[in-house]
């Protein structure tokens, strides 16, 4: 993307981010939001059966994922990680084919529910539904990176509710013992479906639990994209230097219900929902970039048009893609060479 007419802004400059970087980060936040909003429209229109959303998390996801090296480092994401996956190389079509569960859905070929993204091509680990299991996968990836001396860093992300699972304790303990190049990101949106964080987590900040493992725990404002980037960049630097894991807790907000099958007004007040709108990273980042002169009206208009076209393209593409063929439903239970032997089981 060509960006001209502006000198390097002080905004981001101290972080080593160029204007091109920041505009691309903004594009990813806005694209993730636009794809997500389209998903809800398609769900309400009866085109897709289920939506699980990342709205309110996108700023933290883009800021944090931006600190990792695409195609080299690894991320074990979770079901709200649309912006993370887009930042790590997946496309709007990739996300949309998952909503339609098409044969071409790169995450699972239409086998998993929407939200269970993954891509071997982009080092994004396949997501399951039992929460927090992916933390151990990222720890194992980091272990392999250390043993194989690849210089890779692995990150796992999840919500604050998931962070209570035993796998989190087991994994952080092991990663800390071996100073693995591992980063644990908690996207704390205040709710585990309907249960508020105060009933989920015994402390105000999940990050404070890091001290129990002797690792740094950092709280960052999830509506501040550049602050999220800074926290992740520091953690990645530490990890690559062999100084071990970091826990980053991004305070985000959940702008939608838990999923398309949830009615959040049953447990969240109208006042609360209105207040939480103010924690949305998208307008905050837009204003920040406008004020710094990075995001001109011209660029903004061009990005808006690009994003609208990408969402339209992804929707039309996914609508037209064929369903998976049941004839292939028994494939890939095992590596293919034993497929025929096992098929008769």
């Amino acid at each position: 993307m060509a960006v001209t007419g502006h000198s390097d802004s002080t905004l981001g400059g101290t972080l080593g981010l160029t204007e091109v970087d920041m505009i691309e980060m903004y594009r990813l936040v806005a694209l993730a939001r636009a794809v997500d909003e389209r998903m809800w429209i398609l769900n309400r229109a009866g085109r897709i059966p289920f939506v699980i959303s990342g709205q309110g998390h996108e700023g933290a996801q883009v800021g944090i994922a931006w600190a990792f090296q695409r195609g080299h480092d690894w991320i074990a994401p979770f079901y709200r990680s649309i912006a993370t996956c887009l930042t790590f190389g997946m496309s709007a079509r990739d996300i949309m084919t998952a909503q339609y569960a098409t044969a071409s859905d790169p995450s699972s070929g239409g086998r998993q529910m929407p939200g269970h993204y993954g891509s071997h091509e982009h080092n994004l680990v396949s997501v399951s539904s039992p929460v927090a299991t992916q933390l151990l996968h990222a720890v194992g990836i980091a272990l392999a990176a250390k043993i194989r001396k690849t210089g890779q860093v692995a990150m796992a992300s999840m919500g604050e509710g998931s962070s209570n699972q035993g796998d989190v304790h087991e994994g952080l303990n092991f990663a800390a013992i071996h100073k693995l190049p591992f980063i644990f990101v908690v996207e704390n949106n205040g709710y585990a479906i309907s249960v508020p964080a105060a009933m989920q987590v015994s402390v105000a900040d999940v990050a404070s639990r890091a001290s129990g493992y002797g690792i740094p725990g950092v709280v960052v404002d999830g509506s501040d994209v550049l602050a999220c980037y800074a926290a992740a960049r520091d953690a990645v630097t530490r990890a690559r230097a062999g100084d071990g894991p970091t826990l980053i807790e991004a305070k985000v907000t959940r702008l939608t219900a838990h999923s398309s099958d949830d009615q959040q007004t049953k447990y969240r007040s109208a006042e609360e929902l209105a207040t939480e709108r103010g924690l949305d990273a998208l307008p905050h980042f837009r204003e920040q970039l406008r004020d710094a002169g990075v995001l001109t009206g011209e660029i903004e208009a061009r990005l808006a048009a690009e994003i609208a076209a990408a969402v339209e393209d992804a929707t039309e593409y996914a609508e037209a893609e064929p369903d998976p063929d049941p004839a292939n439903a028994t494939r890939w239970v095992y590596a293919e060479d034993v497929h025929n032997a096992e098929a008769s089981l």
Partner: protein
Amino acid sequence: MPTRTFIDAIRETLADEMRRDESVIVLGEDVGKKGGVFLATDGLWAEFGDDRVIDTPLTESMIVGASIGAAVNGLRPVAEIQFADFIFPAFNQIVSEAARMRYRSNNGYGVPMTIRAPYGGGVHGALYHSQSVEAFFTHVPGLKVVVPSTPYDARGLLRSSIRDDDPVLFFEHKKMYRSVRGDVPDTDYTVPLGKAKITRPGSQVTLVAYGLMAHYALEAADRVAEEGISTEVVDLRTLRPLDRDTLLDSVRKTGKCLIVYEDNKFGGYGAEVAAIVAEEAFDYLDGPVTRVAGPEVPGVPYNHVLEEWFMVNPEKIAQGIRTLAAY
């Protein structure tokens, strides 16, 4: 040909595979300096060092979950669960994650990982050091389940398991570790997964067994042979994928099938074998498909009298053969 104990065959195979392929690592509780509580990994740490032989905290879910991640990023982990009885904290990682990774990612990811675990009773291990847990895992598509009975098979099957591109559960009967010896060639042979073996030919009854019970089955077959009953013993060796051909060929020949397993009978692995025989060899049967298995209590009791009461033994199997042969 060199003779080896069951555990020697396992230890030497682990070392061989680690020498052959530097992506093979071993991790588990006490597997390092101590060499494992049964010494199945003795000497590996000294030869291969901290990076490839890792003493883990007491965290079975982590042992398996991190092995999945390590497998995703280019290693071939061999995880040890110290006793099969302690595998349940890792159940979610094995069943929800390892077993489904390839299917759910449409072959985007595979998990080339072997999980070794000592199982079985008869060693004064009581409820939590004696269990047979295979049925929990043979139910799950995406997993392979191996239960060798001889040092030769242990070596050949462990090689195949480590080299396999999918998750394999490798259950070793702890009573056999030092009590079972056998010839093990110094060659790089493998025993393929999914192939049973006729360990004793016979004509009147097919006796299906695996692990320690494969030995007891042979003893029982000897006993009833003196009474004029000819028993064919099928050692399954791999429980999933099951070698249906060898099983069904034998049953179609003998017309009778008795399945032996150490686990309690209800819903055990032998129930699936019985169902397959009933479905696919019904026309050849001239007696009911029967089972000799453990009693319906939730574990092996400790006191030696109670443990003997629990355990399937050659005489219980022989009685099962006699009853079936009388049809």
